[in-house]
């Protein structure tokens, strides 16, 4: 099974994809930025500082999404003994870390004018910092070990430990008193964000997702070339 995941067949697609993804990314990002910075209204309470949300929230979503994907890939790779899954996971991680850091930094910049502080050790912010540390551990683990079996075991264990933190991040604002406000966008109940602000938020999320896809493809192609150069036709 998983014949379609043979590296050689994938490479013929992934080596051509980046330029189309790049065009799409630039297009969606331009629309997103115009929507977020110019067309969307200011907030009744926060006025223009609400615009940081259009970077902060998508970045946080993407970093959580990528960590979840890395975990699912690593666990399936371990269960089904498919090494290519680990390579996909490894290539996804850098953009996840970048968006995690963007979420923390923009949160800090947003916190100063609204809450009155750059940083608070509340449950949401601290758990997000822990996620960044897990990303770092994951990426460092790939560099420390030379033995492939060892890399697979260690990185899978890191994702297994880190994934526990993901629901904690999501529900921290509901379970405990935090300085961070609860979620505005709910799937099951009514969202508390006006549609004129929700639209740019979704466009920016799409733009960030495309950026992650672009970085992933470039990183993944590099990994495949590395394997080819080593004279291995399989992982």
């Amino acid at each position: 099974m998983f014949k379609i995941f043979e590296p050689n067949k994938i490479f013929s697609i992934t080596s051509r994809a980046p330029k189309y993804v790049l065009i799409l990314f630039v297009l969606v990002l331009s629309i997103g930025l115009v929507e977020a910075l110019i067309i969307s209204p200011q907030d009744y309470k926060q006025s223009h500082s609400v615009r940081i949300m259009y970077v902060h929230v998508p970045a946080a979503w993407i970093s959580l999404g990528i960590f979840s994907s890395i975990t699912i890939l690593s666990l399936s790779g371990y269960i089904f003994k498919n090494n290519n899954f680990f390579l996909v996971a490894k290539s996804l991680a850098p953009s996840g870390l970048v968006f995690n850091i963007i979420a923390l930094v923009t949160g800090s910049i947003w916190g100063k004018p609204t809450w009155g502080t750059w940083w608070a050790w509340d449950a949401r912010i601290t758990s997000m910092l822990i996620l960044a540390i897990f990303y770092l551990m994951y990426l460092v683990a790939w560099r420390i070990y030379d033995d492939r079996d060892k890399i697979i075991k260690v990185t899978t264990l890191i994702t297994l430990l880190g994934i526990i933190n993901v629901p904690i991040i999501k529900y921290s604002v509901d379970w405990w008193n935090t300085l961070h406000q609860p979620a505005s966008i709910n799937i099951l109940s009514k969202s508390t964000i006006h549609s004129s602000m929700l639209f740019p938020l979704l466009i920016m999320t799409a733009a960030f997702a495309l950026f992650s896809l672009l970085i992933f493809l470039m990183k993944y192609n590099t990994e495949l070339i590395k394997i080819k150069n080593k004279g291995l036709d399989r992982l």
Partner: protein
Amino acid sequence: MYGRKVKLRFFFIVLILLSLILSVFLILKSLEENVVYFKSPSDVKLIGKLENKKIRIGGMVKKNSIKISSNDINFIITDFKNEINVIYSGAVPNLFSEGKGVVAEGYLKDRSYFEASKILAKHDENYMPPEVKKALEEK
């Protein structure tokens, strides 16, 4: 369809995950006191012995409770069950206003009097343009 080893590895992962979730749950449950960022006025009422320790109290700024004198600002934090008087001198964040969330950091003088050394505004999850807010208020 899948081999015995595949099923065993799957079962192994599920067991590890279950034990991790349970242990993290227990740890967080026992640390609840420290995980919460602030206490509500009702929590303050339940404190057994008053200690001279820095704490945070959060809730809503009670409507019409802000009194500004020459160098102090007085207001009441409420969670709609209990209230606590706060005195503070210094600048307040932009979003600090009546009927909105606030977190005050400082020392409890007695069960209904709090001397704050820092004020943080806690904003809620509602985002809307000013016109929509106005329309909602007129309704």
